[in-house]
């Protein structure tokens, strides 16, 4: 089984000059945690995730704290988001994107997902244009399907 057999053919994408606010709204409506950023030929320029935005709006020392509950000023989040909501997403996106081809094996895709701690990967064609996505559950589903097929073959033999 190949990536092309199990991928989700959804090429929803965002352009790099769209604002942070636009990105947040699109994700909320589409129940997505991130989106590929593409140029006008659908080639991938980056990937923006809600994590990138969360990291941008919380003060950097937060990661060193056990709990943020004692911090009196909860308005910080609001203020920071207000500051960046009209900025282009290109400022916050991850610029190096790891993608797979439809002809790649599921093992290769899972290896990349685990190695880079990603939940999903972009799938691209020979010209590096976005054709869809593949995520962990789709890969697992694909493997389950393969197992079943093997079982059926054995039974027939």
């Amino acid at each position, binding site marked *: 089984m190949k990536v092309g057999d199990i991928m989700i053919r*959804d*090429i*929803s994408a965002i*352009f790099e000059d769209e604002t942070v606010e*636009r990105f947040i709204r699109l994700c909320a*409506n589409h129940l997505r945690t991130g989106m590929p950023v593409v140029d006008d*030929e659908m080639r991938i320029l980056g990937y923006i995730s809600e994590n990138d935005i969360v990291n941008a709006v919380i003060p950097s020392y937060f990661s060193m704290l056990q709990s943020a509950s004692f911090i009196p000023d909860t308005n910080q989040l609001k203020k920071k988001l207000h500051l960046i909501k009209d900025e282009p997403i290109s400022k916050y996106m991850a610029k190096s994107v790891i993608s797979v081809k439809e002809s790649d094996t599921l093992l290769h895709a899972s290896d990349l997902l685990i190695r880079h701690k990603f939940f999903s990967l972009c799938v691209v064609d020979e010209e590096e244009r976005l054709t869809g996505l593949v995520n962990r559950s789709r890969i697992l589903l694909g493997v389950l399907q393969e197992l079943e097929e093997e079982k059926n073959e054995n039974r027939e033999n």
Partner: protein
Amino acid sequence: MDVLTITMNPALDREIIIPHFQLNTLHRVFEREKLISDPGGKGINVSMMLSKLNDTPSIAMGFLGGYTGRIISEELRKRYPNVTLNFIHIDGESRENISILDEINHYITEINAPGPVVQEPDLLHFMKLFNTVVSRTKITVISGSVPVGVPLDTYSILSEKAKESGNKVYLEARGQLLTNTVKKCCPEVVRPDMRSTNKIMGKEVESLNEYMEVGKEIVSYGAELVIISYKFKHDLIFTPEGAWILTIEQGELDESHLLGTGDAYVAAMIHDYLTTNHSLLERAKYGMAAAMAKTTYLKKEMPSLSDIEKNLDNIKIEKLD
């Protein structure tokens, strides 16, 4: 990927089959098959039918909203894996058409919910995405109505951009949207949607002459092929070379089975365009045979290639002009 379909205003078509349906009564439905949820909207229908017909892949674009929108995309993803989705998920809810079918008493009770309002940033985003995608396709299908917030000249802008990228444009629409698009940037293939209207290009059509005039008018704006459904059993075909009437010679058409015939027509013509080098007239005949084969099903379903072939011999072609 060769085909791009545009559905600005998709819908979720829900059919509930309830024998002896009555008001003010509790009806329990025990079989899941009697509760059908189908993605709908003319462009999406063409994508689904192409997928069934010879596994032809396509890209489907448009706007989806809310919970209903998510069901539409989920159903498409599950059941039509070779339709690539490129929808913008907007605020508001997508349209929902509920029909309660009582096959015993032959009643249909329909409830149609309104669609979302498209905001300007969403429309701009759509236009940008459209430009990105249309450069890789060969055929663009623009079909159906537009939701509130989408201006009436949008289809002509899409038609122009698609043509610039070397696409053949198929249009199926009605009313002002059709008139506007034909006048501003006429697509190659035009099929006026005649459901619930007898007006084309702002003119009422009744006699054959009135139909002829309006067909020729659309050709004069630059269409290569115009198809107008005429008196149920006929199609009028117009090209720059002349006009023909296609007639179904044998077989009864069930008027209650017309759902999706127009979309089967378009899907079959596209299949014919991609796989043969038939003349425009033969292509229209192929579309008509598919539409006819479709009427053997109640539901919106694409007939098989062999069913289409079988119906080809039932269609008579006569030259009118």
